[in-house]
């Protein structure tokens, strides 16, 4: 096992370095502004005193590297500074919204993962049949559609023409019961499920077909093993790695795809906050949101890699 542990640790370290580089990127991207934050926020008409006061307040007079280290140290402890617009603590603004986004992503994932993997395996077993072709066209269509198209189609048919679900999901987490929460957020969740299932199905299908083409499966078949046994005993142990990979990658996709869906359904998540802050040029919030998104993305990609390493039979049972 020492071998595996080494590989995993190496991968974790690499992830950490990537995150660090990205935090540098996010912080210093703002430094690229013509002038500085104070000038960008106060605009053309700012007086010298105003600028000076703002620079003083934001600590802009210190060198960039010092501010970066302070920002990073704050971010590690969950303190992202103060919003330029509302003057509230960024962490307080983001916290509940991030929880809301995670809830939506989990909701979608819980539906999407089992459905997608089952369908993906079925389609892989039925490859080159009609079902496979139909599924191919359908999933391709779903992937190619922008999320807001799927979202509005669902709103039109499931909320307006047949009023089954509410069209807007601007829920207030304190005021609604559990059941109502699931009911109100069903359409955004379904939109994401549609996109993610399509992605996941295609990836599962590809990896399973890849696996079934390998010589040892052929060997198992030739020696007369029943079909189900070939799948369960021979194919599945090797299939875990690609499947875990597929799931983690798609969860990462969910986290970013959520931005458009949240805007369509006016869901109070972090994606909507990010878009609003970009429009208002509220840089501390933008930086914090980007860092959180990037961290989640890297973490899930990391999980995919680590999962693949841990489930790889060749690594678990070294010769």
């Amino acid at each position, binding site marked *: 096992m020492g071998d595996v542990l080494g590989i995993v640790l190496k991968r974790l370290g690499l992830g950490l370095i*990537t995150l660090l*580089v*990205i935090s540098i*990127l*996010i912080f210093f*991207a*703002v430094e*690229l*502004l013509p002038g500085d934050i104070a000038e960008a926020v106060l605009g053309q008409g700012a007086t010298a005193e105003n600028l000076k006061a703002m620079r003083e307040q934001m600590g802009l007079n210190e060198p960039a590297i010092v501010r970066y280290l302070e920002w990073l140290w704050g971010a590690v402890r969950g303190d992202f500074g103060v919003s330029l617009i509302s003057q509230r603590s960024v962490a307080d603004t983001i916290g509940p919204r991030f929880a809301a986004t995670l809830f939506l992503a989990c909701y979608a994932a819980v539906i999407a993962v089992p459905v997608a993997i089952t369908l993906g395996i079925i389609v892989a077993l039925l490859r080159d*049949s*009609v*079902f496979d072709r*139909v599924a191919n*066209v359908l999933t*391709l*269509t779903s*992937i*190619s*559609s*922008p*999320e*807001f*198209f799927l979202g*509005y*189609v669902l*709103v*039109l048919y499931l909320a*307006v*023409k047949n009023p089954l679900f509410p*069209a807007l999901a601007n829920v207030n987490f304190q005021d609604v019961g559990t059941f109502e929460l699931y009911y109100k957020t069903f359409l955004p969740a379904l939109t994401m499920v549609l996109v993610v299932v399509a992605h996941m199905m295609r990836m599962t299908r590809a990896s399973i077909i890849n696996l079934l083409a390998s010589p040892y499966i052929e060997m198992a078949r030739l020696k007369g093993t029943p079909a189900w046994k070939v799948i369960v005993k021979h194919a599945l142990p090797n299939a875990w790695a690609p499947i875990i990979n597929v799931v983690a990658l798609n969860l*990462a996709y969910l*986290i*970013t795809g959520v*931005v*458009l869906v949240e*805007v*369509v359904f006016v869901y109070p998540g972090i994606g909507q906050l*990010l*878009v609003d*802050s*970009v*429009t208002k*040029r509220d*840089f501390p919030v*933008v*930086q914090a*949101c*980007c860092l959180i*998104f*990037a961290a989640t*993305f*890297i973490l899930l*990609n990391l999980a995919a890699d680590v999962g693949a390493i841990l489930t790889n039979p060749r690594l678990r049972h070294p010769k």
Partner: protein
Amino acid sequence: MNYFVIGYYALLIGASCLAAYYSARTVFLLLFSLTLVSFIVGIVGGESSLWTITICAGLLALFGGTAFAFREFLAIVLPTEASKAIKTAPLTATFGLFVIMTYAIAGIFAPIIAPYGEAEVIAGAFAPADEHMLLGADQLGRDLFSRLVFGARNTVGIALLATTFAFVLGALAGLIAATLGGWFDQLMSRVVDVIMSVPSLIFALLLLSILGTNAFVLIVIIAVIYSPRVFRLTRAVAGNVVVMDYIEAARLRGEGLWYLIRREILPNSTAPLIAEFGLEFCFVFLLVAGLSFLGLGIQPPTADWGSMVRENATLISFGEITPLFPAGAIALLTVAVNFVVDWMLFRSSGLKG
């Protein structure tokens, strides 16, 4: 039960029996599973959902017919070499080609096709469709159809420019990295790793918040975000070519870097690169549309599909379908390009059967 429902099931079951009789296995499977699905859908959704299925089937048949006719047309018009290739193309691919051609015509001849200008106010806000306005008016009273046509020029044009730029950037860096190797290769690969580990939409939002939104900035940002994919592919493909003997021979002849790239490596790695261009275009196009939808992409009054969806979204709550047209136009083009790319990948990979 009425005549429609009875006729619907009679037609489906009759057709599947006929298919089974002539042992057309594929057709039978398709028709019979449609029958089974209709049972469930019919019970849950009632007659209207059966109508929806019928309309979808009709549309599908129409698409199939168009694709078939277009394939025959291309097979006659094109020279022998290309005509042979097109004859074996699946219907989905020729359908994709047809859609792409339609969009291209709409984009190029937009001012001639569109009855009104893209920013011309001609009616009241959200005026319904009449004989002058095919799809009605938008939130400012501009003709929606004209804006849709102009959108083909603006949205697709920006996406194409950004893709081309990303391609030149990524492919050039990839080719140089593969040919030179060493520190340049290492440096570029690490840079690419970092760019790819941030979700593209988030990265675009971050950069747009800093640099502001205008068309030029948008194109550059998207090109930078999407060039890593091209870089990786080009580097991998060119890496396989670089180790060939003829490259070694050319090096021994004393050819320079630029000659190697242009005359030896590039001609031998075009096939996967062209397919990648199509895929890349889809990603870029969806990102541009998404950004415009968020109000951060192409700015008004320029007609653009993403922002048109956003501006007219209120109509959806009145059961109007018009805001879906621009969104559908985006989806249709992406699907079409994907179909064509699928076919090209299939051809270049040499997989048959």
